[in-house]
């Protein structure tokens, strides 16, 4: 392949697939800058290893395989940066529960006055959800992405993040309580 041809392909790859890859990454990575870096690294890695691309899978599939590996690396990094989140420290949790571990008076869940069985479809809701998710700690967001978007079992999540199952449940619990309160304040009872 001539250099000119390859350069055309570089532009074609980026124009055809970068938004798709970015959309996938940004939902899973709690930070738009990190998502951009991951997409960039994906293209560079694919480009460097172009000799290994056999053409059996489509370019799109090949790029997504690389992207997913980079996202897993990102999940791992959020875990190694979060040692203190995993300690027994109650931190934020104290805001939600009182000294007897019942709901604190100012954190009582409010009735949103909706049918809870109906899924919400509006775009605005999902953008608020994304904002509330971005307020979580990185490792909490990683757990949620793996659990709900990638459908991984808790055992696999613990393995990727190198955390214990009790760490995992504390992370899930705190993130849930926090996300619920954020959605209540910014969407349901705004």
């Amino acid at each position, binding site marked *: 392949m001539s250099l000119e041809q390859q350069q055309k392909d570089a532009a074609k790859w980026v124009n055809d697939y970068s938004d798709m890859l970015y*959309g996938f990454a940004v939902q899973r990575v709690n930070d738009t800058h990190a998502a951009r870096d991951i997409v960039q690294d994906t293209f560079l890695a694919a480009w460097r290893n172009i000799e290994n691309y056999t053409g059996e899978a489509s370019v799109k599939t090949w790029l997504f395989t690389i992207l997913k590996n980079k996202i897993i690396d990102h999940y791992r990094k959020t875990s190694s940066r979060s040692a203190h989140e995993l300690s027994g420290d109650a931190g934020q949790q104290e805001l939600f529960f009182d000294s007897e571990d019942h709901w604190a008076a100012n954190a009582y*869940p409010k009735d949103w006055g909706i049918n809870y069985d109906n899924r919400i479809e509006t775009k605005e809701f999902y953008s608020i959800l994304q904002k509330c998710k971005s307020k979580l700690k990185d490792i909490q967001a990683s757990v949620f992405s793996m659990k709900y978007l990638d459908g991984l079992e808790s055992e696999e999540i613990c393995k990727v993040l190198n955390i214990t199952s009790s760490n995992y449940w504390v992370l899930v619990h705190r993130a849930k309580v926090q996300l619920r309160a954020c*959605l209540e304040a910014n969407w349901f009872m705004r």
Partner: protein
Amino acid sequence: MSITCKQATDYISKKEEGKVTLLQRYQLWRHFAVCSLCKLFSKQNKLLVSSLKHTTAQGEALTTNEKATIIKMMEQNKEAIE
């Protein structure tokens, strides 16, 4: 043996993955009978989980500049290899 709201909300998440014991399930049921807040949390949690699962890309895109930067880096990279 009764449980606290903090335990109840934790069991609610565990129940989602089928990771509660029979005793915990019973304790949760007993707790709901006396705690409307946790019962409400449980309903809201279900909605939350289904929303989290159905999050889709909202048309996020890279800017033309960001794309151009990636293309340039790829081209330079290729030249460096050759």
